[in-house]
């Protein structure tokens, strides 16, 4: 218990002193996870909407696979991306291994199924509501998806935030493809793993508290920003 308090105090001191090392890794954490969330939302949200609106033969299989992929083990994804990006791999020439870009790629693979699946579930219910109306109004397929994405934007935000939550706390994949290199690919989670391994529990805990604070801050920011928009109180 004592160590927890020491960790909290340590965290406060690091933040208070504007510790440059802390800001660097916290900044990279945020950059990688927000980047991954952005890309995953670009792919996952329209995919979820498309799955909600369209009926096709393999739909159930696709949705089952998507839901199963939500539980994808990050270590396996990391390994997979590592093999693809390593020197001898198919994308080795790009030289992306051990860069933040590789970390974003790995996290996109991990969180896109989460974003798409949550978006699909939310929009499926909305589509059940809107179905007859949009067909009756003769809306094109693109217009239907647009209406769903816009009117379901609150639920979609929740989907993106769930993806972000998974990304910011993820360590297995970015450890493998990023390599936890100081000043290059070290982020909060990999630093915590490293410091814990070195027995530096105080510092590890401090970083942990910063990580939690960061996650809360991002969520608060998003909620604050969306509440300024008066048109959507649903």
């Amino acid at each position, binding site marked *: 218990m004592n160590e927890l308090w020491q960790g909290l105090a340590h965290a406060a001191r690091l933040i208070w002193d504007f510790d440059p090392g802390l800001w660097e890794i916290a900044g990279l954490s945020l950059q990688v996870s927000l980047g991954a969330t952005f890309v995953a939302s670009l792919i996952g949200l329209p995919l979820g909407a498309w799955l909600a609106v369209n009926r096709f033969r393999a739909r159930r299989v696709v949705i089952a696979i998507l839901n199963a992929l939500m539980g994808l083990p990050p270590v396996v994804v990391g390994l997979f991306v590592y093999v693809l990006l390593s020197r001898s791999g198919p994308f080795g020439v790009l030289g992306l291994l051990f860069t933040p870009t590789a970390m974003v790629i790995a996290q996109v693979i991990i969180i896109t199924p989460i974003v798409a699946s949550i978006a699909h579930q939310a929009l499926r219910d909305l589509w059940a509501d*809107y179905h*007859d*109306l949009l067909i*009756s*109004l003769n*809306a094109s397929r693109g217009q239907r998806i647009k209406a769903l994405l816009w009117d379901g934007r609150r639920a979609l935000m929740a989907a993106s935030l769930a993806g972000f939550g998974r990304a910011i706390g993820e360590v297995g994949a970015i450890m493998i493809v990023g390599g936890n290199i100081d000043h290059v690919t070290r982020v909060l989670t990999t630093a915590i793993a490293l410091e814990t391994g070195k027995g530096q529990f105080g510092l590890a805990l401090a970083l942990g508290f910063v990580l939690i604070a960061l996650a809360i801050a991002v969520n608060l920011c998003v909620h604050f920003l969306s509440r300024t928009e008066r*048109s959507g*109180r*649903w």
Partner: protein
Amino acid sequence: MVASILPLQVDALTLRRGGRSILGPISWVLAGAGITVVLGPNGSGKTSFLRAMHGLERINQGDLRWAAPMDIVRAKQSFVFQTPILMRRSVVECIAYPLLLDGVPRAQAHMQASDAAIGVGLGAVLNQPAQVLSGGEKQKLALARALIRAPEVLFLDEPCANLDGRSTRDIETILADARDAGTRIVMSTHNLGQARRLADDVLFLYNGQLVEAGPSLILETPTSPELAAHVNGDLLP
């Protein structure tokens, strides 16, 4: 109107669901002007008939032949559901939505929608979320939205079910105005009084069959025993 989509030739229209025939075969012609009221007890196929003509149902047999190509037909008809389907938007945005689909600029669409909302008595709630309206207001919104494209044919499925007298009268006024403006209206109702007030002609459906059709006069002198019983308020088996 440039090229009319009417007449609509309904030819042996048949709907089957779950291996059971729920409608038809029905043959009928939708033409001319005025209001056609579709009567019949629950489960007689009124809703299915209207939805099928609007193009919302898969037709198993028979034919619907409009006088214009389908893309024009779809653009020139609209439907008011028994339970209004409201988008999660404000009143004015809901009414403007069909115009936005047609590519009308947002400002102009909103202006037109505001006028339409005021026209149906929703002027005071323009910017409120549509979901918080009362039942009567929701149905008026649905009507304003259905009329915003100035459709040639308007289908309504029991638009006044569950509404009180005042809302019903408001809606009947809007419908009569739309008819006078040249909109061909086909509506179903359970309310015989409403049928007498609005109908130019009447269809009576029973067990998925078109039992009797004719001018509104048939409400007073029905020829089929089923319609006679329905008009007298007897319960059909």
